[in-house]
């Protein structure tokens, strides 16, 4: 059984991560780590005591401590897409525990909140033994989701357009994710000015979908453009098969749900 470590500062936590490497599991809310990581490692490091649960707002943007829970997102954030994503994670007890930081590291197809954060072009900040390091969430995932320290903070600017999150699940609440989509679309004179599209459950981690974004930028948000974006997203997806849904179904739902999200935005 893993030895339980309780760092009292970020420095101490970063030191423990550096010292124990892959033999250490980080326990924030515990909802994933306690089941999938802690039983297989020598050290479990609890970070709840480090706080990191502040929500700060500045000029429309947000700075979220990595320990902010799903419950806090539901209760305190004025961004419906994030609230919707948080609401879909487990039941009330789990939402009181699960953190936004944990969601970024969730095993696919989970990671609904992270999918929205990708569509918000969020950045993540790690506290390492060499100090703070900030990078785009997208880059973090693209570089293999390797953390060299403790994830402390997620920052995002105000959404650059209409932001919608949709989740495909088999139950209305507390459903394992089949796939999820988040789209942030800025319309400029009836044409798509900027598009930020993310898909969850369609690969090893939530991913931005540049091809779908390109299919929209500069075009009117009409049926043809929406269908094209859906098709691109499905093509770019490489989902897995599990007990809940097959690869075939997931790929199809990526297109279906992205189209629904975009139509919702088009309808205003």
């Amino acid at each position, binding site marked *: *059984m*893993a*030895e*339980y470590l*309780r760092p*009292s500062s970020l420095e101490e936590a970063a030191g423990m991560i550096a010292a124990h490497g892959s033999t250490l599991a980080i*326990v924030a809310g*515990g*909802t994933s780590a*306690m*089941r999938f990581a*802690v039983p297989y490692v020598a050290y*479990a490091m*609890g970070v*709840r*005591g480090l706080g990191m649960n502040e929500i700060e707002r500045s000029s429309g943007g947000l700075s979220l401590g990595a320990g902010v829970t799903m*419950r806090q997102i539901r209760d305190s954030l004025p961004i419906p897409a994030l609230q919707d994503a948080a609401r879909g994670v*487990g*039941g*009330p*007890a*789990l939402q*009181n*525990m699960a953190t936004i930081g944990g969601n970024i590291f969730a095993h696919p197809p989970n990671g609904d909140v992270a999918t929205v954060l990708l569509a918000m072009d969020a950045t993540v900040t790690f506290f390492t033994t060499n100090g703070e390091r900030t990078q785009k969430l997208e880059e973090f995932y693209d570089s293999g989701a390797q953390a060299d320290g403790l994830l402390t903070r997620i920052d995002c600017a105000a959404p650059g357009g209409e932001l919608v999150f949709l989740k495909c699940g088999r*139950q209305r*609440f*507390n459903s394992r994710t089949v796939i999820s989509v988040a789209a942030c679309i800025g319309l400029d004179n009836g044409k798509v000015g900027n598009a930020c599209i993310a898909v969850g459950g369609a690969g090893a981690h939530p991913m931005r979908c540049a091809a779908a974004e390109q299919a929209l930028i500069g075009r009117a948000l009409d049926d043809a453009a929406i269908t094209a974006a859906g098709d691109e997203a499905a093509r770019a997806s490489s989902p897995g098969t599990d007990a809940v849904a097959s690869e075939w179904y997931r790929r199809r739902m990526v297109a279906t749900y992205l189209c629904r999200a975009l139509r919702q935005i088009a309808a205003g």
Partner: protein
Amino acid sequence: MASGIVSIKVNGRAEEVVTGAVTTLQDVLRNNLDYTSVKDGCSQGGCGACSVIVDGELRLSCLTPVQEVDGSEVVTLEGLNLSNSITALQQKFIEKYAAQCGFCTPGMMVAITALLDRNANPSRDEIAEALAGNICRCTGYLPIIEAVESIVAEMAGIAGD
């Protein structure tokens, strides 16, 4: 902090647990302290049968390291039984036949208590959503929802008097 002594208050009583290794709150409550209302339905965070209240917040004790609740107040159904506020809810459960095998019931009682603490007048949909983390394999949920609706209506009636 590294001493391995965890101090918690359970149902109003101060307790100390000595452990250096990861130990779940569920294990401590059920097996060290004999609070057997804390059921072990899955130990995976999937069924809600082990639900308890930590510092006023509903939690799954099976996924909570006891070290993470050091200094906290923990309430199990045994603790709720000590207050009068749950009696009316329990009576509604009995009236509505809202339990059959009874294994999920302690977790349900705790989850409903937490719901009513947050929202004294939940709608039917809010009640159903609040039960999303608590699985019942016997009743089909409807009698449970009806029991909660009925206690809500009764509370509203009392408040309106």
